[in-house]
């Protein structure tokens, strides 16, 4: 087997990585368009409508504009950290998706001898990997805030770090409750555990067993992705643009990209943990990824909807909500779940 031609599964795997990477970039572009459109309709405007039909080419025009802009760096900025901060942010955002499954195993219409799962890699501690990589994403924001040598950036970076640390606890505890129910840390197994129906029509999704956990996960997810109503790192009325005040051109675009990819990842993980992943009625098994996309899209729409409906909290309210309400609720949720799992077996 020492031939120079790579084996079919290897080609399929690299193809899968390539496709997922590009889909993530495209989904970020789509999210930018959707956000502007939904925001416009909520505010009784039309939104972008010049580039392409209904303005759907607008994100690509924006990227071209950003590409041709001058890359500025403040003189007093720390050159090295200033450059790698957006790379860390975007890198962590993309890396987290590598363990997220989005469909059943497939042979690509018989092209492959052995089926490959629709997922870059299936590790048995996938939930923890997502958790670990998201926590790495903080460094991009903190370093950007520090290295810019600007007060607004520094305050934005500090706030972001404090916020993410506070909400990571509730986030982790919400995950732990699901892990207890499923008895596995692999996202694929967690999804497969949700197969079937109660009483013949209610899908056995964990959202019905863990309504409180789902609520905590979604709240913490909004805080982790720095979205409104928890978008303090970039509260523009107080901090100009927070941690990316000093960034321009493509390095700014990378922060932007990271934010949207993070949203997609948080929604995709929520879909897997609480909404039964790619499982759903009507469609045959091999089209499960359509269900997955639909569910992720609905969650993303919910995020956008929330951003343009709710005003931003005050910073102390955010901390109070995180520590005094969300964290005790998450602990309670975990304890009750543990007790029920032990009691009912």
């Amino acid at each position: 087997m020492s031939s120079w031609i790579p084996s079919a599964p290897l080609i399929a795997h690299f193809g899968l990585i390539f496709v997922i990477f590009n889909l993530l970039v495209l989904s970020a572009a789509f999210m930018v368009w959707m956000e502007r459109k939904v925001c416009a309709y909520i505010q009784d405007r039309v939104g972008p409508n010049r580039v392409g039909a209904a303005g759907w080419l607008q994100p690509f025009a924006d990227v071209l504009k950003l590409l041709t802009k001058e890359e500025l760096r403040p003189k007093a900025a720390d050159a090295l950290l200033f450059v790698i901060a957006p790379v860390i942010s975007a890198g962590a955002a993309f890396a987290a998706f590598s363990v997220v499954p989005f469909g059943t195993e497939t042979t690509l219409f018989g092209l492959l001898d052995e089926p490959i799962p629709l997922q870059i890699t299936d590790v048995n501690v996938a939930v923890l990997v997502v958790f670990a990589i998201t926590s790495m994403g903080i460094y991009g924001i903190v370093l950007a805030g520090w290295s810019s040598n600007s007060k607004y950036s520094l305050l934005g970076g500090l706030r972001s770090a404090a916020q993410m640390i506070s909400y990571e606890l509730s986030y982790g505890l919400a995950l732990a409750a699901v892990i207890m129910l499923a008895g596995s840390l692999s996202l694929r197994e967690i999804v497969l555990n949700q197969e079937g129906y109660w009483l013949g029509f209610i899908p056995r999704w964990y959202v019905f067993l863990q309504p409180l956990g789902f609520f905590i996960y979604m709240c913490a997810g909004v805080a982790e992705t720095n979205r409104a109503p928890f978008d303090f790192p970039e509260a523009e009325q107080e901090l100009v643009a927070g941690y990316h005040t000093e960034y321009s051109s493509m390095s700014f675009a990378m922060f932007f990209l990271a934010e949207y990819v993070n949203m997609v990842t948080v929604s995709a993980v929520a879909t897997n943990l609480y909404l039964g992943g790619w499982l759903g009625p009507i469609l045959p098994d091999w089209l499960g990824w359509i269900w997955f996309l639909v569910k992720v899209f609905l969650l993303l729409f919910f995020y956008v909807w929330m951003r343009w409906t709710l005003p931003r909290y005050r910073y102390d309210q955010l901390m109070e909500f995180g520590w005094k309400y969300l964290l005790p609720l998450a602990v309670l949720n975990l304890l009750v779940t543990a007790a029920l799992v032990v009691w009912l077996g």
Partner: protein
Amino acid sequence: MEVAAFYIFAAITIVASLLVVGQRNPMYSVMLLITSFGGLAGLYILLDAPFTAVTQIIIYAGAIMVLFLFVVMLLNVPREEPLPAAAAQLIGPTGLKIGVVLSVLIAAQLVWALMQIGTRSFTAPPTDISDVGNIGRALFTDHAFAFEVTSVLILVAMVGAIVLARKEH
């Protein structure tokens, strides 16, 4: 393949650790320490212990280093200040001598330990050691006492920190 990966991760870990103390910017030190933790996590994965690797990232690289970063940012000392003359004199020659003795001792210990490796035979640990369920079971049965004592220790540290922070009132 695995050997190459081992050398890459080992090189990352060692070079980053050396640079942590080798250069003077505390911010870079923090980032380099995180890099070296990342390299260590890679080594754990090669040892077939993904759970340990991920905990290494979550706890050390994620949680603890963010606190380090916070402190460095809040103090905001971009460069180490030179020691006042009096203090420099105090730790100067004597400190240097103690340091040399200590490093020679550590080097001797390392060499001795490395020489032992060749003479002893290792038994491979059971293959299910990396299973999360087994780790949990071991923690709550065989090592329950150590586990509980550790949690008390952390509680003490937490109470201590709060007491220290409230001292002004």
